[in-house]
């Protein structure tokens, strides 16, 4: 039971050396296990802790003393022969000192399984309700904004169109080209087995126009612009800029969201058209190089396969996707809570939710093509 830092002598524990952050881990392990194993508590009614040989003491040392006192169930009266300096530190840091730790720490209540399910659906309902209100607000103000240019900054529509539309063209084109290329290469291999080479154009035209082009574009826009909208609005909310706008008698939706809404409405269809054209060019490469078709026949097949109705539905669909992205992005921006970490969370949630929403909406629209 002897150790460099302490030794136990009948009813007294003598402490030695420095009890500071560097040494405490070692002493703690050894001393507590020794004390727990020994039945010193049962042998003596009065225990003492002697600090005459203690050189240094810091707050972690005092915390250890507290723990010893808890284990041995003794009070600060048992601490004897501490130097004045160390005694002062004990008085400040010990939780046994006059101002005792209060146990008013609010602990989290246990949530039962049913409670969690109920909570989830309740929150979901609240979200949906808020989202509906926001949607109606955005539609109202964007229609008002069409006729009344007051209430949003001059040039913000152009600026947003550049950001959402023009800057997205390279990445949309690149991805569409690659997808068109891959899709036609994979199909060409299959089609060739049946000698159905000349139908590649029909296949690619329908696939790109009715599904792939709007979907790819929507996912890119959700990732690029949806996240930007969510983080911008969330930051404005956190830094009280939205409140500042309200205090200047400006409607935040009208001032911040409506220009984005207008911009995305115009740009999305244009982006989708770009995506379709470039995707078909990718397919053309395969058709000419791999299948040996003439460009004219391939493009004719593409155009003949796509009816005007399909094309119009696609344009409507992509515009709905775009609205959805703006609404979801600004919804998560407006409901942000907390500080910087809230902004990050809101952005992530908005991207996930808008991609999810786009795919669900796409499934709904696929019924429209059947009609």
């Amino acid at each position, binding site marked *: 039971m002897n150790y460099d830092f302490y030794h136990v002598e009948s009813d007294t524990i003598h402490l030695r050396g420095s009890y500071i*952050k560097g040494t405490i881990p070692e002493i703690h392990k050894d001393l507590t296990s020794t004390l727990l194993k020994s039945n010193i508590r049962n042998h003596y009614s009065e225990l003492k802790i002697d600090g005459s040989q203690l050189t240094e003491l810091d707050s972690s040392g005092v*915390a250890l003393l507290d723990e010893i006192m808890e284990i041995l169930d003794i009070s600060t009266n048992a601490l004897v022969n501490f130097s004045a300096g160390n005694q002062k530190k004990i008085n400040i840091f010990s939780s046994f000192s006059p101002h005792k730790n209060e146990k008013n720490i609010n602990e989290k209540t246990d949530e039962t399984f049913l409670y969690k399910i109920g909570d989830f659906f309740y929150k979901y309902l609240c979200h949906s309700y808020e989202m509906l209100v926001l949607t109606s607000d955005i539609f109202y103000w964007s229609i008002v904004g069409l006729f009344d240019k007051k209430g949003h900054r001059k040039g913000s529509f152009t600026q947003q169109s550049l950001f959402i539309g023009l800057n997205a063209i390279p990445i949309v084109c690149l991805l569409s080209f690659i997808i068109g290329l891959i899709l036609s290469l994979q199909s060409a291999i299959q089609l060739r087995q049946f000698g159905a080479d000349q139908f590649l154009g029909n296949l690619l035209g329908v696939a790109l126009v009715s599904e792939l082009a709007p979907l790819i574009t929507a996912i890119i826009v959700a990732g690029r612009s949806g996240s930007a909208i969510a983080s911008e609005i969330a930051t404005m909310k956190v830094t009280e800029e939205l409140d500042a706008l309200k205090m200047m008698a400006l409607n935040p939706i009208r001032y911040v969201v409506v220009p984005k809404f207008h911009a995305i409405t115009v740009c999305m269809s244009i982006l989708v058209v770009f995506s379709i054209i470039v995707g078909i060019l990718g397919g053309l490469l395969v058709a000419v190089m791999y299948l040996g078709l003439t460009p004219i026949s391939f493009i004719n097949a593409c155009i003949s396969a796509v009816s005007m109705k399909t094309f119009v539905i696609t344009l409507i669909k992509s515009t709905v996707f775009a609205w959805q992205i703006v609404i979801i992005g600004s919804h998560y921006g407006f409901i942000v809570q907390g*500080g*910087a970490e809230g902004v990050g969370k809101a952005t992530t949630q908005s991207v996930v939710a808008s991609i999810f929403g786009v795919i669900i909406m796409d499934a709904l629209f696929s019924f429209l093509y059947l009609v």
Partner: protein
Amino acid sequence: MKQNNIDKIPIIEVSNLTAKYGDKTILNNISLDIYSGEVTVILGASGGGKTTFMKNIIRLIEPFSGSVKIFGNEIVNMEEQDFNEILKRVGMLFQNGALLNSISIFENISIPLEQHTNLPFSIREKIIKKKLELVGLSHAINLLPSELSGGMKKRAALARAIALDPEILFFDEPSAGLDPITSSNLDELILNLKKQLNISLVIVTHELASIYRIADRIVFFDKGELVYQGDLTGVINCEHPIVKKFFEVGKF
């Protein structure tokens, strides 16, 4: 007695410190000592180089030239590892607390203890509870920083700053954004901690009320130059036009 600095130990020695942002000189050839066990208040107009001075001392900004010694060790060009050892012996309270927002107060204070010591959890927990109690925030231990008011955030940040029992504490405008009562409570708390824990304090502030309450020694910067250093009575009677104006416009 306060004038008599000869028998006091300088804890921070700054000599010929020059700080620049690009080509712009912020501090020009500053030499001064900060003594152990004192409250040193750094004053000056906005943009006068106060915060830059403090950030240079603790190398949040690297000094352009000159020498800074903390605890007698030259810290300019010191190896990062050695400097980290120095940093463990000082604490800093930032203007808005700078608590990590995504984790609770308990975990915030736990960071330095967890990273720089091998203390077992039970000991760490005791220290954290005690430090929070010293700043009067025991009830907020499980709350997130965003759930606290401005004054509470600062107190929680103070608890984090004293987690490792530092010897020097730096304060960047502790009373900024607080009402006079909260600010005076914070000053009282700072003074109490100084008395109890025997810490040396370096405070950047504008609050005249706060200066009268806590300052032992005053350092006054203007346009990157050190224009005054000395005690409180000296600064009030100081003839330097800028210092004089600073104390006059603050009066009612």
